[in-house]
């Protein structure tokens, strides 16, 4: 239960940092953003396709020195600990088995997807997620396989960060947490709230509530080795690149959940 109270504290602590999208905030233009609209040398008629285009073009990052320090920490953690461990683990466990284990962890995420779909009023998506969970937990051997996909039961993941966005809460400021990586004030609150629905938190013992997600992280990393290296090689400022991609992808996720079923 310790992790639950920790999650509740995090939600309360971070709430003031969340930027609610009040009508006043919507009416006034963002102040700290570059005036790239008028200087934009290339027209892109598709850029105004979405509501997201009207949102500020960048997330606020007042804690950048701290975030960059954490980014460096995560970088070292990856190269010094995670990568060698994941490499060794990858040699012991075949790729196919690791993909199955990844699916199993995805299947356990069902309560989070179900509850958040309901909170967003998406009954059909919640139903489809339930269908997937039932089929994959039984026919799919606890989620190791995904027969539900073949039966046209497509995944409809949803999380509390998205739900908060759905109700008009802005992302607030940017965080790049140690271990967890890119997030926002809203994203952190969302993660804390979603952790209440994680079954691992209800099994006694710190070893389970920390160990199982850590193992999931290791398994995922073993399937994605080399991708972070590519990102670092291809970007001029990997920190800014990750921040931008995080903001854009979360804004898109919120926009998608606002669309009617």
């Amino acid at each position, binding site marked *: 239960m310790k992790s639950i109270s920790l999650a509740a504290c995090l939600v309360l602590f971070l709430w003031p940092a969340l930027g609610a999208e009040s009508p006043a905030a919507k009416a006034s233009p963002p102040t700290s953003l*570059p*005036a*790239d609209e008028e*200087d*934009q*040398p*290339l*027209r*892109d*008629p*598709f850029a105004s396709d979405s509501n997201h285009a009207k949102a500020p*073009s*960048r997330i606020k990052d007042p804690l950048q020195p701290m975030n960059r320090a954490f980014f460096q920490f995560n970088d070292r953690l990856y190269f010094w600990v995670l990568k060698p461990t994941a490499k060794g683990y990858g040699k012991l466990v075949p790729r196919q088995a690791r*993909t199955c284990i990844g699916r199993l962890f995805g299947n356990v995420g069902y309560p989070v997807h179900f509850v958040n779909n309901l909170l967003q009023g998406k009954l059909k998506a919640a139903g489809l997620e339930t269908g997937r969970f039932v089929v994959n937990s039984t026919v799919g051997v606890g989620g190791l396989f*995904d027969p539900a*996909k073949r039966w046209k039961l497509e995944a409809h993941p949803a999380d509390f960060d998205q739900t908060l966005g759905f109700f008009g809460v802005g992302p607030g400021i940017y965080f790049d947490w140690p271990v967890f*990586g*890119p997030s926002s004030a809203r994203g952190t609150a969302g993660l804390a709230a979603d952790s209440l629905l994680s079954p691992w938190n209800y099994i006694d013992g710190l070893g389970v509530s920390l160990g199982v997600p850590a193992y999931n992280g290791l398994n995922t990393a073993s*399937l*994605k080795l*080399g*991708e*972070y290296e*590519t*990102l670092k*090689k*291809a*970007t*001029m*400022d990997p920190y*800014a*690149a*990750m*921040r*931008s*991609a*995080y903001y*854009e*992808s979360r804004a*898109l996720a919120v926009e998608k959940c606002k669309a009617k079923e």
Partner: protein
Amino acid sequence: MKTLRWLLVAQLAAGSSLCARAGEPTAQIRATTDKILVLLSDPALKTDARKSERRQLIRSELDRRVDWAAVARSSLGRYWPKRTRAEQDEFIGLFSRLLAETCLDKLDSNGADPAKIDYLGEKIIDDYASVKTQITTKDQTVHPVEYRLQKAGKDWRIYDVLIEGVSLVKNYRDQFDEILGKTSYEKLVADLRAKIPRETP
């Protein structure tokens, strides 16, 4: 952060094609993709001796389809008009090499992985087009990739790629804004130059 992992590397992948409402922009994207897939699967070009030749051939296909000048111009954003013509040309050259090399490295490493590309449809506004595709990887993960193109004569040329909804150009613009807000353009160009591998003979 699946998106991040796909952001810079997933422009092209191997596989068959399905098509819905295909117009000229889709046809041209598909033609380029198919040509690259043929080059990747050619056993004669897979040998170490002809590896650089294969890279050259793929690079020419990319050059034909991608409007590197538009990508560079848009990525530099509000800083673009402040540069001289010579600086702009130099920037296009360096930045296009960084992007192309990243793409080529990725294709070299796992370009032949079996996968599927579905063409989901296109939208045209005046001389601009958006072509939506979907890449399914070997482990059945699906990644939406959208190409944005501008018409130049008979050709439709790419000015942006959105991977899982994240714009490549916007991502670089945010990086350049960050860098140029703190340091000089000269430093950015020096860093860019340092990033690019030396020309292979």
